């Protein structure tokens, strides 16, 4: 069982604005993929379409060969597609530990998790996710009281707790300190090899460090695909952005 995402003819229009136009893409199983592009290129829309937050105007999305174009968001999540959000969203009234447990709950495979004892077992097994993103000491803090960086880490931990086969990360490095980015990198690298990762990012250094393949979107259309090195050298990509991306490997935040 692989975690391959196949997209064909995917289009999403909002009235007169076409955010994503006739995309044909495949995210190979177990790969580390990045999606980049100038603001407004349709990257987040693409993630929303894959995750099921949005329905496409036309086109198909296949997950492991199964057509999920019409499948509801919650169902897709239970099938193994997890995501983080551009603005990290958490459940503010609940503690950090509860947030992770609730995120893991539909994927835990045990029945009757609503019973106290089983819930506690689940919660304990989720502690490792807190460690992975480094927020173990915040476990009992109400999630609404977290600072932005901590909230981002919690958001990521919640996605990891779902034990996904496909992990969609929407600008995970935004607003993180260097230390946070390092931890994020470590967490992504620590993922099992079978998990397919799709990262939307602006930080090209992060992209180079994480991704095997980079897909460039521009105005909702596919501009280029290749390894990070190929993309960094691609002239059409450079002109799509305002100004140079810089040399491959140089840290540059393009905003």
């Amino acid at each position, binding site marked *: 069982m692989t975690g391959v995402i196949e997209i064909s003819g995917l289009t999403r229009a909002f009235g007169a604005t076409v955010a994503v136009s006739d995309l044909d893409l495949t995210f190979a199983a177990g790969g580390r993929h990045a999606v980049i592009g100038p603001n407004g290129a349709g990257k987040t829309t693409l993630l929303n379409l894959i995750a099921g937050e949005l329905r496409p105007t036309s086109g198909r999305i296949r997950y492991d060969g199964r057509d999920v174009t019409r499948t509801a968001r919650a169902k897709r999540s239970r099938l193994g597609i997890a995501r983080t959000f551009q603005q990290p969203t958490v459940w503010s009234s*609940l503690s950090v530990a509860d947030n992770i447990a*609730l995120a893991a709950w539909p994927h835990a495979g045990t029945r009757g998790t609503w019973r106290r004892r089983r819930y506690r077992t689940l919660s304990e097994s989720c502690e490792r996710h807190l460690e992975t993103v480094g927020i173990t000491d915040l476990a009992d803090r109400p999630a609404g009281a977290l600072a932005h960086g901590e909230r981002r880490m919690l958001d990521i931990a919640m996605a990891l707790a779902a034990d996904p086969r496909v992990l969609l990360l929407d600008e995970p490095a935004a607003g993180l300190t260097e230390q946070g980015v390092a931890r994020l990198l470590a967490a992504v690298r620590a993922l099992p090899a079978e998990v397919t990762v799709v990262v939307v990012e602006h930080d090209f250094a992060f992209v180079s460090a994480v991704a095997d393949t980079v897909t460039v979107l521009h105005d909702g259309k596919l501009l280029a695909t290749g390894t990070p090195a190929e993309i960094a050298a691609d002239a059409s990509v450079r002109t799509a952005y305002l100004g140079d991306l810089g040399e491959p490997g140089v840290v540059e935040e393009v905003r």
Partner: protein
Amino acid sequence: MSAPTSPVTPSGSADPSVETEPVMPTVRASQTARTILSSPRLRVGAPATAAAVLLLIAPSTFDGYGIGLLSKALALGVLAVSVVVLAGFAGLPSVGQAAPFMVGAYTAGIMGQHGHGIGVVQLVCGAGAAAGFAAVTGLVVIRTRELAFLMTTLAVGELAVAVAGQWHSLTGGTDGMYGIPPVRPVPGTALLDSDKSVYWYVLAATVVVVAVAWRVLRSPVGKLLLACRDHEARMRSAGHPVTLYQWLAYVAAGALAGFGGVLMCTVNEYVSPADGSFANSALVLLAVVLGGATSPLGALLGAGLIVATRDWLSGPFPGHGPLLLGLMFIIAVYALPNGVAGVKVRLPRRPGGSA
């Protein structure tokens, strides 16, 4: 209302007793007062102990009228707890909870008039009928949001009252059902034919049902509901069947409301469409507002406070009950600054946001 935002307090000082919202520094005094009342953890603090003492000594200190008033407050209190479940925990601020309350009351009334006078049986049947009512109406109500949800629950409630007034053969029409015979709690016990005996029965039933509700709300089930309230979309993204949870919460709240309705019927020995009126729905909403959105105990205290105030004020101003209730509403809405005591309407789906 407000999306989860970065809080104002520095990370190290988040108050663990404020579980419902991030702390805003503006109005600390009422915040503290609210915190005391709204803590979901059973802080057996001053108000709770005082209330418990009052409830226990009431039959020997109050007259028949006072005891009856207290019994009614308890019945409405159970209805208020159902609002805690829906509005406080699930984030569904229904303004029509008096409808299942009325369904429960009529069930008890009809049973009583047909000779089925066992208290616990009436309670079970009333709660069941109300749950059925909620199950059916919930199928459509659950799919609405925000303003449409408010309007739909209001409309369902009003129509239920209209139907109750129309269905003479079943309900006795707008005049209501008089002279419902007193019940005996369990087969073999004495008939509850005095204010005091009815009071103890109502008190016992209230304590039991609220304790059960409280336990369930403190369990992982309560966490599920709170998360749906905080961010429904995130719950869906995580794989939870949110619509199912909300429908179940709606049915459970209906059952609770029906339970309260049966108690009200037992106290009054009379049922009428007025039991389902919007005034009742709004009254218990106000009680929840006063007591803290996620506190069943606070809801009970709030209901008691409103019933007592209304009664106390109706002495010098007879016949102006609605006016007094209306003024209480207006004052309460302005005086409670942090939204309606944390009763959050779910996050708007539209990017423009709601008012």
